[in-house]
């Protein structure tokens, strides 16, 4: 699907009818190819919906892949390809892995960039003019984990006093460590041990031995699905009795299917809480159904909702530029991303309703699947978190953490 679906077939004619290009700048090869596999279909689906409704200013949207390979030099040429050759009007991406290598190019070329995946804390104090994100920062995510671990009323198991931090040696995981550790201490808990481990190892017996020696009540395990399965199974074999707290990467059905209930049952996880409003009016369910059909998934994958919101925001911003100044350009689109999400506008929840309202000249407030999408000065969003507990091969919601609580 991915190979073919890339083509949204602009009509190739000259003048205003030539296609409006949007770049998806994430890894499509290497260990992180799954990120591209999760994000691309969502952006293509939304783009096809927009094109079906006549596109933006009569111009069809064209989605182009920029493969960063999760390598700095490859991400630089991928970004240059999107900005200079494809002349994209906006970019969905990049991930935390290559953000710092290419951030300069976004700002210099004034390219509106909405990343659905980069939770890294390095972005906490950057962005906001050209770079926005529809995924909450790891610092908020980490704080929510700490808060949930301390409150039985949220996690439904117990108020944990001692915690071990078991974190993979990659920026995308290390970015969680400080927020979880400091918040947990701030909320009155004690961090009994910090274990950084090399990712992608064959087995983790020694690391688990160190964990069982520390004997924490709960372990915050920040790692990939495959490493988490290995660690939790090794811990089960070593007789580890404590609980687990996992991050968004692992809180999904795919993770549960890779191990056995006896290991995963009772493990706590975290996901952006499906926005009550989105759940109440059935949008979340409708999206799940649509994307699972479109991309052939059995379950809505990680970053899918974030990518949905990112795409809608970007296209609405372009549409606003088209309506206000009769043309889509990078500078206006960048400013419009913030405008179309401003809290004071009338609430809209998808491109069609949003575009219609904008065409009539009313200010809109886009509210997505991930949350209300109200950007702070750095282009970050706060989102409510759903704390989940593994039960057999599915996750049960144990409680909620609102941004206000943190």
């Amino acid at each position: 699907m991915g190979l073919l679906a890339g083509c949204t077939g602009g009509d190739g004619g000259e003048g205003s009818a030539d296609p409006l290009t949007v770049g998806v700048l994430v890894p499509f090869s290497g260990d992180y190819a799954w990120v591209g596999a999760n994000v691309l279909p969502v952006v293509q689906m939304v783009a096809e919906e927009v094109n079906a409704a006549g596109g933006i200013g009569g111009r069809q949207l064209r989605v182009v892949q920029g493969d960063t390979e999760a390598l700095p030099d490859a991400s630089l040429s991928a970004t240059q390809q999107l900005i200079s050759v494809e002349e994209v009007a906006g970019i969905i991406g990049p991930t935390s892995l290559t953000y710092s290598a290419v951030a300069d190019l976004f700002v210099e070329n004034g390219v509106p960039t909405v990343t659905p995946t980069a939770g890294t804390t390095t972005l906490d104090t950057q962005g906001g003019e050209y770079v926005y994100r529809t995924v909450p920062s790891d610092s908020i995510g980490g704080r929510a984990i700490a808060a949930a671990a301390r409150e039985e009323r949220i996690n439904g198991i117990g108020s944990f006093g001692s915690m071990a931090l078991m974190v993979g040696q990659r920026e995308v995981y290390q970015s969680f460590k400080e927020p979880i550790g400091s918040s947990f201490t701030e909320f009155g808990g004690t961090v009994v041990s910090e274990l950084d481990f090399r990712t992608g190892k064959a087995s983790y017996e020694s690391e688990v031995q160190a964990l069982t020696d520390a004997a924490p009540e709960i372990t915050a395990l920040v790692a990939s699905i495959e490493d988490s399965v290995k660690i939790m199974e090794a811990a089960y074999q070593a007789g580890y009795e404590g609980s687990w707290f996992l991050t968004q990467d692992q809180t999904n059905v795919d993770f549960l299917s890779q191990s056995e209930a006896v290991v995963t049952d009772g493990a706590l996880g975290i996901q952006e809480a499906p926005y009550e409003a989105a759940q109440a009016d059935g949008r979340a369910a409708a999206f799940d159904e649509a994307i699972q059909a479109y991309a052939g998934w059995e379950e809505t994958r990680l970053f899918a909702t974030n990518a949905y919101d990112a795409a809608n925001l970007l296209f609405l911003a372009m549409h606003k530029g088209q309506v206000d100044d009769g043309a889509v350009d990078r500078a206006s689109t960048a400013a419009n991303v913030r405008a179309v999400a401003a809290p004071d506008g009338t609430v809209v929840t998808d491109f069609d309703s949003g575009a219609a309202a904008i065409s009539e000249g009313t200010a809109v407030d886009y509210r997505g699947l991930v949350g209300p999408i109200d950007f702070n000065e750095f282009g970050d969003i706060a989102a409510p978190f759903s704390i989940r507990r593994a039960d057999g091969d599915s996750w049960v919601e144990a409680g909620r953490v609102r941004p206000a609580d943190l």
Partner: protein
Amino acid sequence: MAIVTGWVAFVVTVATIACIYGLLTIGLNLQFGFTGLLNFGHVAFFAAGAYTAAIVSMPPPGTVPGARYMIGLAVPMPAGLLLTLAAATLMGGVLAALIGVSAIRLESHYLAIATFALAGIFYDVLVNERWLTNGTFGMTQVPKPLRATLGADAWALAYLLFAAATLAVVYLLVGRLLEAPFGRVLRGVRESTAAAEMLGKDTDRIKLVAFSLGGAIAGLAGGVYAHYIGSVVTGQFVAGVTFTVWAALLLGGVASHRGAVVGAFILVAFQQSTRFITTAYDAAVAAFPDTLGVVLTALAAPLPGHPAFLPSVRFMIIGLLFILVIRFRPAGVLGDPQEVTVMGSEE
């Protein structure tokens, strides 16, 4: 400064990366092409240079939020650029000398494995020793000299010229070395270490000098890379880089000084051009929706649709490149078959 837009901007980026790979290939050619030292750990010297340049030029830890590294000498730019590049070159050479002193006497197959293993150890050190390399967060504030004053487009062009000039200078210096008796001694050591030894040449020292020089040039490439990308992270220094440089050398021509640089440019151009396969495919289907579109769709239909499919095809092509060059054109594009007896017959 609107000159660097559109295709030009992309080509400027790709050309700068090609210059950096050109330096790496010259270094490897000095080690393998001319001296017969099978180095499968070239990326370690590249990384040593990049990290040294970062450590010498990065701001001190206190000023950077969340810094885990301890040393940041904040050498002022742009004056300090030569200093950081010199340090990078020196560190690449020192690391190569350290590895060389222990491994140089090994027979070529074992040297390949030893260098491959030592590069693996060096990668683990980069990831684990946070005090030095900031761990997997990487050194992300490496200054880009004159970046503020020139603005993006002009700077991109200026840095390309700088990288090309560095490549040219290294090319000329190494070229002169290779024409001098030094080059002749290397080739003799490559052909038969025993005979060279019998003719009074201290072959261990010569191999060590060649290996260290190759490592130093790779270190310099690391320095040029660090100031270009502005961030040095462990994710960049994987074994794939070593074998990309090997592919460039084989393509260009083993033991051909010109071939090494040409090979690097050809390979980088090939790698970057495969980015456009999806767009070219879309354009082709869009342009001829009925005839070609049907054929292409039919062709593509059975292929697995997951996005990792296309990039894996690219790597398979690079693999085939290794196989075909060795089998049908061991001398590579510009290599001289006469010269490359080492590829033809065992000592």
